[in-house]
């Protein structure tokens, strides 16, 4: 029972970065741009958050720095894709590469380390005890005591559909994503909307990185994201671009993340196989979705 509680608790923590990144991915998807750069944006966010927390001696400022850094990188991404009409996928991959190189480089140059940067006394995100909830056995242990980012991510899961489906801007985003010509014909500034959305997805990835580095582990190590950005992208595909199903997929992947260590020790399934599982499942599911789509058409 204790293990069960621990696993659930871990799941929620591990899923949070995925959820934030997936929300960024959902917005990009809705505006018609596949965001391959979630990985790189998250990585920059993770790094800059720790950097900011360290130098400014405040967790909050760290998170803010993380968000800003990711937004800046997203701006560069947007500039090349929208203004200079470079290929969306290729530039996305370049953003990931840039983030990887830049973070490794700065890690070496600033802190003279190749592996991890884990300063003592790094301000961390304090766990929050929710008053009434924490008293409840089991549920309290699972849902209370997370960093504020975890709760923030739940808030966004709730807010995102409202924004997309109930506000004017959300309507414009969806219009641009589905038929930019039609949107243009009624006067919606398509490029500007796309710019904003990409930068916004950067902000979300910044939050994702913040939780990953400062929230979960209180450190940064090179290539920390290790494919989580792509997992978030896959979650977006799973959920077909809709916030709630995508978030659920993130929960599932977070579960795998949380559980794989325990699987090794308890059941003895090799960690590499459990790590491989999410990606494999993603490919299979996407294939099944495509299969169904093709069957429908004929």
């Amino acid at each position, binding site marked *: 029972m204790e293990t069960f509680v621990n696993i659930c608790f871990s799941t929620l923590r591990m899923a949070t970065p995925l959820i934030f990144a997936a929300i960024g991915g959902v917005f990009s998807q809705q505006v018609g741009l*596949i965001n*391959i750069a979630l990985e790189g944006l998250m990585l920059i966010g993770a790094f800059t958050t720790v950097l900011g927390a360290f130098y400014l001696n405040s967790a909050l400022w760290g998170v803010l720095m993380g968000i800003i850094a990711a937004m800046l990188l997203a701006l*560069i991404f947007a500039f*090349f894709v929208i203004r*200079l*009409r*470079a*290929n969306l*996928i*290729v*530039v996305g*991959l*370049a*953003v990931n*590469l*840039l983030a*990887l*190189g*830049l973070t*490794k*480089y700065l890690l*070496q*140059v600033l802190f003279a380390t190749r592996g991890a940067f884990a300063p003592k006394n790094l301000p961390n995100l304090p766990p929050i005890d929710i008053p009434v909830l924490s008293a409840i056995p089991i549920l309290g242990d699972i849902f209370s005591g997370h960093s504020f980012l975890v709760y923030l991510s739940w808030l966004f899961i709730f807010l995102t559909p409202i924004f997309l489906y109930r506000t004017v801007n959300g309507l414009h985003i969806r219009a641009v994503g589905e038929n930019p010509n039609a949107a243009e014909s009624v006067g919606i500034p398509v490029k500007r909307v796309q710019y904003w959305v990409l930068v916004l997805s950067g902000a979300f990835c910044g939050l994702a990185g913040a939780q990953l580095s400062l929230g979960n582990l209180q450190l940064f190590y090179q290539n920390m994201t290790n*494919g989580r950005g*792509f997992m978030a*992208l*896959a979650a977006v*595909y799973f959920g077909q671009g809709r916030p709630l199903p995508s978030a659920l997929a993130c929960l599932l992947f977070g579960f795998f993340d949380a559980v794989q260590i325990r699987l090794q020790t308890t059941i003895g399934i*090799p960690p*590499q*196989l459990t*790590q*491989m599982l999410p*990606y*494999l499942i*993603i*490919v299979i599911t*996407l*294939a099944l979705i*495509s*299969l169904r*789509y*093709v069957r429908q058409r004929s």
Partner: protein
Amino acid sequence: MRSMTYVWWREILRVILTLATAFLIGAMIMWLSGKNVLMAYKILFLAAFGSSSAIADTLLAATPLIFTGLATAVAFRAGVFNVGVEGSLYLGAFAGAWVGFTLKALPGPLIIALALLAASLVGGFWALIPGYLKARLRMDEIVTTIMLNYVAIYFTSYLVNYPFSVPGLANAMSPVIASSAIMPRLMPPSQLNFSFILALLAVITVAIFFNRTSLGYALRIYGANPLFARWSGIPSSEVILKAMMISGALGGLAGAGQVLGVNYRFIANFSPGYGFDGITIALLGANSPWGVLFGALLFGALRSGGSTLELMMDVPLELIRILEATIIFFVTAQFTLKWINRRRMKALPTS
């Protein structure tokens, strides 16, 4: 009739501008980090080309990149975004290693030949999975190939951690290949080996393939204009599948080259992203085999020179990665197009 030279000129200009910009940005970063930029670039250049051993190391670093660059270029030329070369590389590497440490009884050259064959088959079939999904199910190959990369990396890691692990070793690696299967060295003491020659042969083969074979022709035409290819009767499914098979095979050879020539065994996570570098190189080389060779040599120089730079001036190797990313950004951007268009507009008589 517009001149033919106009097109060439534009491509070369683009490459030069891109490289210049990248080096400029690299210079800025180094300057900001307090390094002596001029000295850094001088060391970089010397470390890459300054002596015969430097050149050997450059060619060594370029070897896997030539293969992955070619692998990506073949797919790109057919209009398929194969981002999964890394996966083919890993599986091919393992397949090659397996032959190397299992069929020890056979004569050396035969082991090498079989290892290369196994690597290309395994790498090729691996790439057929996303290829089939694209050809039959119209499934987007980008997300698929990226996901499958992780599957391949983790799976091979599993293989050397469990079934094929060597008891007593801390690191995850396979048994050593037969000593007779080690690729002969070309310029000792450098590790530059016969794989490099194979890589050059691959360049020539791909060039011949593109320009002189009927499949190569079909692939190019399909990549240039898929609608036209259909109207001319060129079977698109076949083209996609074969392109992916070749692409995967080349990726597999990249892995086998590293196993047989450098590591002599399969080491988990051994690739610092050769597959992804292949993408940059293919783009830089405009998907042509000779362009890929140029790009691979350039990056090989950057890599090998970069590690010396790191040693001597404490400039992290990651700077190279930053340069690479910058190159990708600028290579696919459409500046030159806008600039030239604006000039053309002015030249037209006003209507």
